[in-house]
C-alpha cells in the first residue's frame, strides 16, 4: 500500500542528488570569540545512497546539514550538490528537524501542504498532499491540529511535509531523537522503506550508533568539536536488515571504538 501511494506521489522520477564537500570549515561568533564547529571536512555521497553522520553531542553535525540545506553558508571550503555550490534553500533539499516543529495553527493537511503553498503550486497539486498524508499512514487525521497528535504522529507529519515536495536530498537531523523507543523502532523501518521507494539521497544525523548501522549504507563518524571525520564505515548489508545480525554487532564495536567508547563494549 505504501509503495502504491508513493508511486502516485512521485509523478516525476525522483533521482537522488550527489553531494561533494571540499575542505569545509565553519565557525560561529560567540560573544565576539570565534567558535569553530567544522574543521576541514571533505566527503562525497553518491546519488541515491543513505549515509549517517554520528558523533559526540554538539560536534557540528547539525551545522553540516544546515550548510547542505542552504540555511547557513560555510566560512571556508565549498559545499556542492550535483556539482553546484549550495546557495539559498531550495525545496529539492529538505531538512527534517529533531522537533517536528509543525505550525500549531495549521491542521495536519495544511502543514503537509506548506511547501506546495509556499511555492505557489498547491492549487494544481492538492492530490500530492493527500498522497503524502496517506504515505505516512495518517489518513483520517487530515483535520487534526498538532496539539492533538502524539510525538510519533507529529514526526510522521513532518516527514510528509518534507516528502510532498519530492525532494532529491532528504536531510534528517535526529528525526527520531525524541520518540519513545517502540515508536522509534517502528519508524526506523518506515524511513528505510521511504528512502528505498523514493530513490532519493538521504543523510541522517543521529546519536544512536545502532540506528545509524541499522538504517544506512555508510556511517561517517565525527570527532569532538571542531568536527572532523575520524572514520568512514561501510555497512555492506542487504535490506531488510535484522537487529540481531552479528555483522551489525561487530560494526557497532568498531564505531564505538572510534567514538572513544570501546571500554563500554
Amino acid at each position: 500500500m505504501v509503495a502504491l501511494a508513493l508511486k502516485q506521489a512521485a509523478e516525476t522520477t525522483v533521482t537522488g542528488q550527489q553531494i561533494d564537500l571540499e575542505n569545509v570549515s565553519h565557525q560561529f561568533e560567540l560573544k565576539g570569540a570565534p567558535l569553530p564547529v567544522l574543521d576541514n571536512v571533505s566527503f562525497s555521497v553518491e546519488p541515491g545512497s543513505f549515509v549517517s553522520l554520528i558523533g559526540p553531542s554538539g560536534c557540528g553535525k547539525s551545522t553540516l546539514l544546515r550548510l547542505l540545506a542552504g540555511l547557513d553558508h560555510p566560512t571556508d571550503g565549498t559545499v556542492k550538490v550535483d556539482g553546484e555550490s549550495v546557495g539559498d534553500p531550495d525545496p529539492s533539499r529538505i531538512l527534517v528537524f529533531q522537533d517536528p516543529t509543525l505550525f500549531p495553527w495549521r491542521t495536519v493537511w495544511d502543514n503537509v501542504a506548506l511547501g506546495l503553498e509556499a511555492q505557489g503550486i498547491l492549487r494544481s497539486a492538492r492530490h500530492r498532499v493527500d498522497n503524502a498524508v496517506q504515505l505516512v499512514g495518517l489518513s483520517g487525521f487530515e483535520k487534526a491540529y498538532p496539539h492533538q497528535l502524539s510525538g510519533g504522529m507529529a514526526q510522521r507529519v513532518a516527514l510528509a511535509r518534507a516528502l510532498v515536495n519530492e525532494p532529491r536530498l532528504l536531510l534528517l537531523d535526529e528525526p527520531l531523537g525524541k520518540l519513545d523507543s517502540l515508536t522509534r523502532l517502528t519508524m526506523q523501518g518506515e524511513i528505510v522503506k521511504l528512502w528505498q521507494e523514493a530513490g532519493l539521497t538521504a543523510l541522517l544525523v543521529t546519536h544512536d550508533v545502532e540506528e545509524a548501522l541499522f538504517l544506512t549504507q555508510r556511517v561517517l563518524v565525527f570527532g569532538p568539536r571542531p568536527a572532523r571525520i575520524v572514520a568512514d564505515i561501510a555497512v555492506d548489508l542487504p535490506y531488510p536488515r535484522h537487529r540481531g545480525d552479528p555483522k551489525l554487532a561487530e560494526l557497532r564495536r568498531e564505531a564505538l571504538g572510534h567514538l572513544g567508547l570501546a571500554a563500554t563494549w
Partner: protein
Amino acid sequence: MASIDPALSERAHGSFRTTGWSWTAVWPLGLVAAAGWIGVAALIELWPEIIPQPYGRELAGIALAIAAVLVVVAATGRLFGAVSDTVRYYGPWFIAAAALLAVWEVVTAKTGWLPVPFFSSPQSILEVFLDDWSRLGISIWYSVLLLVKGYLIGALAGVLTGVTIGWSQAASYWVHPVLRLIGPLPATAWLPLAFFIFPTSGSASVFLIALATAFPVTILTWSGIASVNRDYYDIARTLGAKPSFLILKVAVPAALPHVFVGLFMGLGTSFAVLVVAEMLGVKAGLGWYLQWAQGWAAYNNMYAALLVMALMCSSLITILFRLRDWTLSWQKGLVRW
C-alpha cells in the same frame, strides 16, 4: 476546556437530559425564584412609596413577567432547549436578584433611607429608560460609532507597525525610541491639542481612540513577532517560502495570540478615552449624556446611562472574545468569556 462561563460547560455536559413531562422534571429552585419575583411585584405594588413615583406598576409587571418565565421553565423541563438550561443554570442568581431588588426598592422608594436625588429607586431608572429611550439610544449609537472607527483604525495601525518593527531592524531602530517616548503618555493628555488641531471634535476623538488602541497593539504584536520560533522560518525557507510568505503565513499567525492580548488591552483603554473625549468635546454619546445629566442634576439618568455603558462595554468585549475564539480555535484550553 477552561471556561469562565460555566453555563456553557454545564450545557455541554447536559445535566438536564429530561425528555417528556413528569413530576420529577419540575425544577423546585425555579419555583422558589418565581415566588421571590412575585413577592417583589407585590412589595412594589402594595407598599406605598414615601414620595409617590411613576412606573411602579410597570416595574411590578416586569417582575411578574420574570416570575412567569421561571414558572414556565420550572414546569416544562428541557422543552426550550438551551434557553431552559441557561435559565436553570442561573436559578440561584434569579433568587439573589429578586432579594437585591427588594432591598433596593425598600431602602429607596419605600422608606427613603437612602435620600433622593442622589440615590435612585428602581422605578425611577425604569422611568429614564421608558421616557428617554430615544436620546439614550442615539447616544449609544454615536458612542459605538466613534469607538469602532477609532478602534479599528488604531488596531490596524498597531498591527502594521508591530509587524514592521518586529520584522525590520531598520524600522525598529527608528520607531522604537519614538514608541518609548510617546507610547506611555495617556492618550487623554493629547486631548486639548487634538481638539485644537483637528477640524472637528469627532475626528479628534477618533484620533485619540486610535492612538490609545494602537500603542498596546503595537507593543504586543511586536513582541509576538519577536518571539516566533526561529525554526518556523527555517522550515518555511527550506520548503521554498519567499519573504512575503514568511511574514503573512508564518510570522503573523504565530504572533496572533499576542496580538489578541494587545487588542484586549487596547479595547480597555479605548473605553476610557471614549468617555473622556465625549465628556469634554464631542456633543454626543454616552459620555456626553452623563455630563448632560450631571448638568441638570438628573441622577436617575446618570445611573441609567452607567448601566447602559456597562452593557455596551461588556458586549464589545464579548464580541472580541468570540472573534478570538474563532480565530485561535487551534489553541487548546482557551479562556472563555
